[in-house]
């Protein structure tokens, strides 16, 4: 269902995004405001800095960097407005900034790959296939994915990376977002 105003559509989009982020960190979000049709950006504050995440097994875990781009556009059939994601960068990094993995979707820009994809850590050594073949270097590849939601990344961090959730109802929060 669309919102009555561009501002309401923006807030309908950002509210669950922030609720999901609150499963991981107390840090707030910043978003840049623009009129309908222009891309907007949202991410943790301070911008473009990593957010250290507490590991369930100890004080220090991985960190996350998030940039989410979205547009608010009219929905003529409903005489309202709605927001949708247009691109993103979710990077899970080591405490020193080294990338562990990155989910990217940048339909415009420098990269030859415009579809959603995954990058793996450069710490992974190339896989030797034998003397007659070139090794397979996964770290250099753009591994195709579907569009990955922020909620899926938060779930990955909690369930697979062992990040300690800050909300006891995190599973319900993430499930509601995926519906």
């Amino acid at each position, binding site marked *: 269902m669309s919102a009555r105003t561009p501002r309401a559509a923006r807030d309908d989009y950002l509210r669950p995004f922030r609720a999901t982020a609150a499963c991981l960190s107390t840090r707030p979000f910043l978003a840049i405001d623009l009129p309908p049709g222009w891309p907007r950006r949202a991410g943790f504050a301070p911008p*473009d800095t990593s957010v250290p995440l507490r590991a369930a097994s100890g004080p220090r875990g991985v960190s996350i960097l998030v940039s989410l781009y979205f547009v608010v556009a009219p929905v003529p059939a409903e005489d309202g407005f709605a927001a949708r994601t247009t691109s993103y960068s979710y990077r899970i990094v080591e405490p020193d*900034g080294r990338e562990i993995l990155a989910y990217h979707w940048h339909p415009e820009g420098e990269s030859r790959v415009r579809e959603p994809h995954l990058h793996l850590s450069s710490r992974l050594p190339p896989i030797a296939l034998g003397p007659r073949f070139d090794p397979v270097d996964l770290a250099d590849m753009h591994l195709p994915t579907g569009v990955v939601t922020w909620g899926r990344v938060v779930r990955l961090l909690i369930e697979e990376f062992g990040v300690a959730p800050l909300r006891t109802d995190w599973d319900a929060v993430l499930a509601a977002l995926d519906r």
Partner: protein
Amino acid sequence: MSTATKPTTNPSTSLATPPPTEVEVFASHAYQRLAEADPWEGFTEEDRERGYRILTVEEGAFQFDRTVRAMLGISGDEFTRLWEAGAYATWADRSGYRYLMDLGMMISVVRQDP
């Protein structure tokens, strides 16, 4: 006939040195200062309650400039010029340098003046 080697890059759009790696960026004092800034800076009570703050385009451009200066030591405008000239094309999608892609993606937002 001259045997001088012809430059293969435009000096005004090529990088004098490779950009810092992500590990070098994280280790820099400028980045550490940025990362340790108060994340709630400028938040009103209403902003605090909902957990996010809406920046104006001008505030967004200021933040972009501050971030680029902390990471690369150049202004946001200079980064934009170099990015659009392709100076980062061989680096931005490469392991160890993907923070450049994040900065490049942000250009589409901060350059707008609706």
